[in-house]
């Protein structure tokens, strides 16, 4: 079961979830820019985890290789289609963030989707975002202390806003029954039956 390929239904469902999140990403960018403008990149760092929600949620639901990367690319693509004013950075970040989260799931052979792994994926995602922005916006020109501080805030944000919040959202979604034909939904039903017995 762990080594199945994504089928058409997986891809379309991932597309819809990521597109919805892509719109939220765009709104979050506006908020993030305000916070960054006022408090600098460190304040913005605390918001970074939100942009890793799509790979965490989709990988957790589908539990197949490629889901995380695809989800983040589609979320980024939706942002661009909806008219993001930072299309280039968004696409680059979408690729690096999705890839980083994907690597974490691959390390666990797409078998373990518990909270620590999801948090790790979120942290990897924000770490990749940090590296990408380090290159793009010339962080090497700033004092080492503030760059490290920023990295730390981003990684904390990745664990909480992406890993923890993403899991709790997907867990709430699975109770509605719409995910019954996906790995997460099946696990939830099995758990319920076990409890009933």
């Amino acid at each position, binding site marked *: 079961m762990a080594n199945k390929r994504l089928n058409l239904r997986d891809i379309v469902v991932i597309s819809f979830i990521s597109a919805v999140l892509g719109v939220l990403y765009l709104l979050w960018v506006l908020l993030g820019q305000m916070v960054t403008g006022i408090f600098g990149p460190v304040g913005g760092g605390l918001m970074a985890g939100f942009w890793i929600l799509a790979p965490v949620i989709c990988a957790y639901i589908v539990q197949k290789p490629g889901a995380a990367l695809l989800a983040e690319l589609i979320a980024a693509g939706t942002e661009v289609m909806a008219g993001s004013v930072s299309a*280039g950075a968004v696409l680059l970040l979408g690729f690096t963030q999705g890839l980083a989260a994907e690597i974490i799931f691959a390390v666990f052979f797409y078998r373990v989707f518990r909270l620590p792994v999801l948090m790790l994926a979120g942290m990897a995602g924000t770490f990749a975002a940090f590296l990408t922005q380090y290159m793009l916006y010339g962080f090497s020109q700033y004092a080492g202390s503030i760059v490290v501080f920023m990295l730390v805030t981003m990684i904390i944000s990745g664990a909480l806003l992406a890993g923890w919040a993403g899991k709790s959202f997907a867990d709430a979604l699975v109770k509605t029954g719409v995910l019954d034909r996906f790995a997460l939904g099946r696990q939830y039903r099995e758990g319920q039956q076990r409890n009933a017995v």
Partner: protein
Amino acid sequence: MLEELQTREAFLQQVHPTLKLLSLFTVFFFMIFIYDIWHPLAVLLLTVAAISFLGKVPLKLLLILLLPFALFGFSFVWLQVVFPEERGATVLFYVFHMPVALENIQTGVSLGLRAMVFASWSLLFVLTTSPVSLVMSLIQKWHMPPSIGYGMMAAYRFLPQLRKELVVIRRARQIRGMGSKPRMREWKEAGVPLMAGAVRKAERTALAMESKGFDGSRKRTRYVQMNYKKTDVWFTAGFILFITVVFLLPLS
């Protein structure tokens, strides 16, 4: 309004989306190595001029869109002044006993302008490329799997419906007397039914695609052909000239 801009009869709108995407990443790449003020400033002005003349986008709209980035860019300046990697020698003045050096302001302005260059090239892409032509070109020229491309388009078309569903959810909550909660809680509680609706819609869409014989294979005839044209040659030539003059020739 965005759609009207994206389909205008102007030069940039005719250029193949894949080429515009490539040019975007090329500019990003070359900008990474720039730490002076004049290069990003020149690129920014040229880009804004290109969008307004070659893309027939009103200058006023462009400036309004770039305004938030000016604020974002300014954060690089003060950050560079307060937390520089290396404090410059030419101290201009003091703010609360903290020396403000010319070199740090220059680096900060350069990084701020760089962020604005990224924004302006992104605008060049976004304001002149329609989503459909972008996805179609990616499928036809960059071998994006059609199942992903069409899935994305279906999802994108579904998005306007979200707002209606949010209104329905909100009214349903009001009828049940749950309307007086703080907005943050409401957002969280509306998020789950909203996403559940999206997943249901996605499953129906996938079923419809399958039942109509769409299996995601690449060997299909297409209604819209995204081929390279003469404008693409001109764009590529112009872009190579631009990169050579601004980044590769030693002008300083």
